[in-house]
């Protein structure tokens, strides 16, 4: 909302700097986005009078003028414009001046003739012919008699380009502040100046409006009030300068007096108005009704629109002439030969206007206001104001009376006045009479313990709303902060603690955390080779996505991880070790909401990365979560992983994730030209089995005996099989067993491998003898022999 300072001054005189005005208004709740003076960039441009006009000696299109700019001698200026005459008053950009767009003007020579400056067009002042309809658009702006034509006057003052405009951000609960009078009320209350809601005078005219117009509201739930007035013999002309100036300052283009009046009233009072050409209103009747099935209307913007039965229209005896509260029909507008008009000032149901505007895809200035809920009591006042302006502008002959179809209840909204509650709720101590003063400055009334809410404040319905009014004019800055008194224990729950632990363990292992979008393209499932019937392809689908790439909620975080690996690879980063604690969204049949599951997603490529470095990360994670019972099995059916380099993690029988080397096809899909590794673990399963309880174990008191053993076995046999057999056979004194070598090659038969372990044996209660150790080793060797595995000789 742009507010003209000149206009504001009609209602309330505020004598402070622009900055202070902005600050005070912001702190009382009308947020100022910015402010500035019109024509601020123009410098050194004054009114001049053309004394003589002669052809340039060396040009067939340039003119040499002598211009009086109020100085001791006339200035000689060369111009190319063809619309000048001696005696014209024109804007003169003097030496060292600045015109619109920031262009600097200096004196100089044009084809050998001295020119002390430049004569300006409207465009060079930042204006258009909408601002000065009598000016020519491709020549110099010749000032009309609506300008101050004293030579030497600053051009901005001379043509009224000197308003201060403040831009406000108005919140949707305050449509009353989308108006000059609404902001004037707020300003007056902010500065402690009295303010009276303006009441336009009722203009008497000739004839009787009921001979021209009838109004009928067929759906009073969608239209609370419809007021209409008629003006005949309209004299379409440009509006006077003061009115054009105010529209321009408010960001509205002046058109002609009638259209300008409707806009002026809307800006002044906040109520959208419409003017119909009476010629096209069949039967002189206005019927506010729902559209009929199949009905169409071509709106003012020239588009044909299909209406549906839930849309409210303004119709005449035969056809819709406007979409109520949104836009008029093409024949309803004002034309050059319009003779008689009907002014509409109506109040429509906000949500209904909003839904219609949305369905038709046309949010207009009017619909944006209506959908916030306007003051039904304001309709009549606005119609009176429009007629007042018609009279003032002599824009037509007013027909006596107004048709006012009012379906509102006349109940006043009241809220109990509870100043003590307000003080307690806000944490302030404002005396009762001060609270009443604040409320009355905002046009509330306090009577018999009740606050009577003005009709334009649809947002006030509870004592908390009253408290807010008191608080914002008492000043939020004056509320003393008071730390909470009662205490509660702040702590993370078990899941949150585990999450934090997982973060820390992965970070400590050199993995960097990433964050990726939760929505992906369904095509990404193809990129990881999910078969057409994979249950993971069943995603939560967004009805109105921004684009395909963000159109479904992911059921797996693998594509997100691969995308990030790919981006890093293609950004020529040598390597990346990444993780994400990500959410996946699994639809649940019969439920409105999906199951939102957390997963730990892992990914890496680059030097030092292989299957086992990924596995190591997972093992370390499991160790730190206190998970010691788990199985890692080879899998060959995980579609996006290498069939020979993929594993499944199972914790206590619960499938907990898969990991491995990325399938070469998938690498191709992601344009990664090196090996990459990904894994995904179920956060919930990890949490379920995590055990962070720790009990101290006594440090060993007796020395250990170590033995190294190497076996030769079939190379396809998993090392884990050997390890388990040895552990089982060696007995309780086997403290640890660790693999230290796997070897294939010379001295080992084809198809076989040598596997070497280091065994640490220790007894908890005595020094172990070599004989005891040897017997444990012997048991182990025997156990392996049973599996057909022999000691390497």
């Amino acid at each position, binding site marked *: 909302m742009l507010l003209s300072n000149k206009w504001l001054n009609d209602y309330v005189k505020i004598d402070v700097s622009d900055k202070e005005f902005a600050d005070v208004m912001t702190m009382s709740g009308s947020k100022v986005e910015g402010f500035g003076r019109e024509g601020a960039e123009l410098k050194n441009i004054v009114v001049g009078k053309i004394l003589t006009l002669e052809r340039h000696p060396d040009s067939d299109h340039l003119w040499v003028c002598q211009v009086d700019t109020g100085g001791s001698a006339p200035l000689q200026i060369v111009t190319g414009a063809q619309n000048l005459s001696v005696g014209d008053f024109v804007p003169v950009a003097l030496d060292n001046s600045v015109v619109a767009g920031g262009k600097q003007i200096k004196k100089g020579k044009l084809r050998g003739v001295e020119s002390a400056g430049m004569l300006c067009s409207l465009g060079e002042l930042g204006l258009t012919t909408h601002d000065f309809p009598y000016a020519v658009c491709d020549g110099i702006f010749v000032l009309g008699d609506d300008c101050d034509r004293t030579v030497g006057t600053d051009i901005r003052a001379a043509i009224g380009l000197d308003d201060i405009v403040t831009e406000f951000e108005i919140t949707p609960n305050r449509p009353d502040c989308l108006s000059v009078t609404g902001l004037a009320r707020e300003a007056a209350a902010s500065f402690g100046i009295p303010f009276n809601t303006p009441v336009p005078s009722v203009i008497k005219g000739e004839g009787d409006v009921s001979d021209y117009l009838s109004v009928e509201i067929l759906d009073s739930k969608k239209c609370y009030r419809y007021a209409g007035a008629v003006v005949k013999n309209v004299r379409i002309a440009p509006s006077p300068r003061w009115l054009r100036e105010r529209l321009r300052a408010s960001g509205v283009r002046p058109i002609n007096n009638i259209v300008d009046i409707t806009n002026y009233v809307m800006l002044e009072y906040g109520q959208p108005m419409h003017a119909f050409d009476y010629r096209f209103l069949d039967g002189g009747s206005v019927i506010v009704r729902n559209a009929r099935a199949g009905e169409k209307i071509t709106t003012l913007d020239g588009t044909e629109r299909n209406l549906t039965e839930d849309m409210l229209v303004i119709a005449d005896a035969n056809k819709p002439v406007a979409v109520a509260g949104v836009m008029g029909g093409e024949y309803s507008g004002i034309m050059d030969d319009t003779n008689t008009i009907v002014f509409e000032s109506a109040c429509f149901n906000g949500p209904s206007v909003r839904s219609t505007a949305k369905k038709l895809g046309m949010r207009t200035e009017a619909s944006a206001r209506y*959908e916030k809920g306007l003051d039904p009591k304001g309709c009549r006042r606005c119609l009176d104001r429009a007629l007042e302006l018609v009279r003032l502008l002599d824009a037509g002959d007013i027909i006596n009376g107004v048709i006012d179809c009012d379906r509102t209840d006349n109940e006043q909204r009241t809220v109990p006045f509870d100043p003590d509650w307000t003080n307690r709720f806000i*944490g302030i101590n404002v005396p009762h009479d001060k609270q009443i003063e604040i409320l009355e400055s905002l046009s509330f009334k306090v009577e018999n313990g009740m606050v009577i809410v003005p009709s334009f404040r649809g947002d006030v319905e509870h004592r908390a709303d009253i408290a807010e009014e008191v608080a914002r004019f008492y000043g939020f800055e004056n509320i003393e*902060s008071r730390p909470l008194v009662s205490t509660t224990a702040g702590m993370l729950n078990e899941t949150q603690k585990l999450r934090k632990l997982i973060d820390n363990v992965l970070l400590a292992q050199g993995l960097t955390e990433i964050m990726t979008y939760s929505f992906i393209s369904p095509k990404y499932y193809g990129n990881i080779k999910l078969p057409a019937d994979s249950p993971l392809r069943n995603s939560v689908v*967004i009805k109105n996505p921004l684009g395909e790439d963000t159109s479904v909620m992911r059921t797996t975080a693998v594509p997100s991880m691969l995308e990030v690996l790919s981006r890093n690879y293609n950004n020529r980063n040598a390597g990346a070790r990444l993780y994400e604690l990500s959410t996946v969204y699994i639809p649940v049949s019969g439920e409105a909401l999906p199951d939102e599951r957390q997963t730990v997603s892992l990914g890496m490529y680059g030097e030092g990365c292989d299957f086992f470095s990924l596995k190591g990360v997972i093992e370390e994670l499991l160790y730190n979560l206190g998970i010691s019972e788990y199985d890692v099995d080879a899998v060959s059916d995980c579609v996006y992983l290498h069939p020979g380099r993929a594993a499944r993690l199972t914790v206590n029988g619960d499938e907990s994730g898969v990991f491995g080397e990325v399938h070469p096809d998938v690498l191709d899909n992601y344009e990664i030209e090196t090996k990459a590794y990904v894994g995904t673990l179920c956060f919930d399963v990890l949490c379920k089995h995590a055990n962070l309880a720790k009990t101290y174990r006594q440090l060993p008191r007796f020395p250990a005996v170590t033995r190294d053993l190497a076996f030769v076995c079939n190379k396809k046999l998993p090392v884990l099989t050997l390890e388990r057999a040895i552990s089982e056979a060696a007995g309780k004194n086997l403290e640890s067993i660790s693999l230290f070598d796997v070897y294939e090659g010379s001295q080992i038969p084809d198809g076989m491998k040598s596997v070497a372990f280091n065994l640490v044996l220790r007894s908890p209660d005595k020094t172990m003898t070599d004989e005891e150790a040897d017997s444990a080793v012997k048991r182990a060797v025997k156990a392996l022999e049973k599996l057909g595995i022999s000691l390497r000789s």
Partner: protein
Amino acid sequence: MKSQLEQMRRTAAEKIAGASGIAELEALRIAYLGKKGELTAILKQMGSLSAEERPIMGQLANEVRAGIEALIAQQFEKFKEKEKAERLVSETIDVTLPGKSVALGHRHPLSIVLNEVIDIFLGMGFKVASGPEVELDYYNFEALNIPEGHPARDTQDTFYITDNVLLRTQTSPVQIRYMEQNKPPIRIIAPGRVYRSDAVDATHSPLFHQIEGLVVDKGVTMGDLKAGLEAIAKGLFGNETRIRLRPHHFPFTEPSCEVDVSCFRCGGKGCPMCKGEGWIEILGAGMVHPKVLQNGGIDPDEYSGYAFGVGLERITMFRFQIDDMRLLYENDVRFLSQF
């Protein structure tokens, strides 16, 4: 014999002083003090001495022995020191060669700031709550006093799944869900992802993070809200930070305010970061609307509360002076490893 001893002491002292190293020193010790050494040889003459002279000479001989031993020991120490000094010199390394580190991973900048916020609030007695991202219209709008047709729905361009299910546009639905399950006193923050239909650019993302805060208890006032907000501001941006509450409107709080912090770069004097304002808007807050308390099953006549919502991306970007939001979701390791 006395002169022999004296003579030996003198020559030994000279030779020890002139010794070139530990080996020569050892040879001298053997030559003078060894079993077959000079001193032993001289002492063999003891037998020819008188009973009176014998103890005197014995004492002298012991003195000489001790003297030579001391000299040798002294010299030995010197050589040891010298040898050590030489070894240390020869062991000199180039300390400017790179160190061998175990590289830690890097936390995502959003996580860094989120963890700080969580720590601040844990210290103030808050718990951390969460709620679904795919949410019912009821929790995201209706229960928060934003009925169908309310213009506030337009300011939050919503992604819909069905007419009734959407991607939450704010973390505020957690307020209702938490109140439904818990009785006051309530003190929670609820961080999480939210979604709005904004095309990606330097300052917009269709997905971003909010941190919701909710406090409900008997007698909670706007003064409490102010104190809570001051704590966040100081915790995040330093102890000197001041806050400013500007009246605003949110459907689910009344009164509502937008909260500015004094610019953490210029301290409020005005600079390019705060666009000369001295203040930077960081969050929205207010007293929980009575209807919202009611919708959460809490009696607004008995309890009151405050709520706030912070955009995590916004404060993170300010905090690290990140000028493009896209960097946060591109996850380039050259970016991430800066944090």
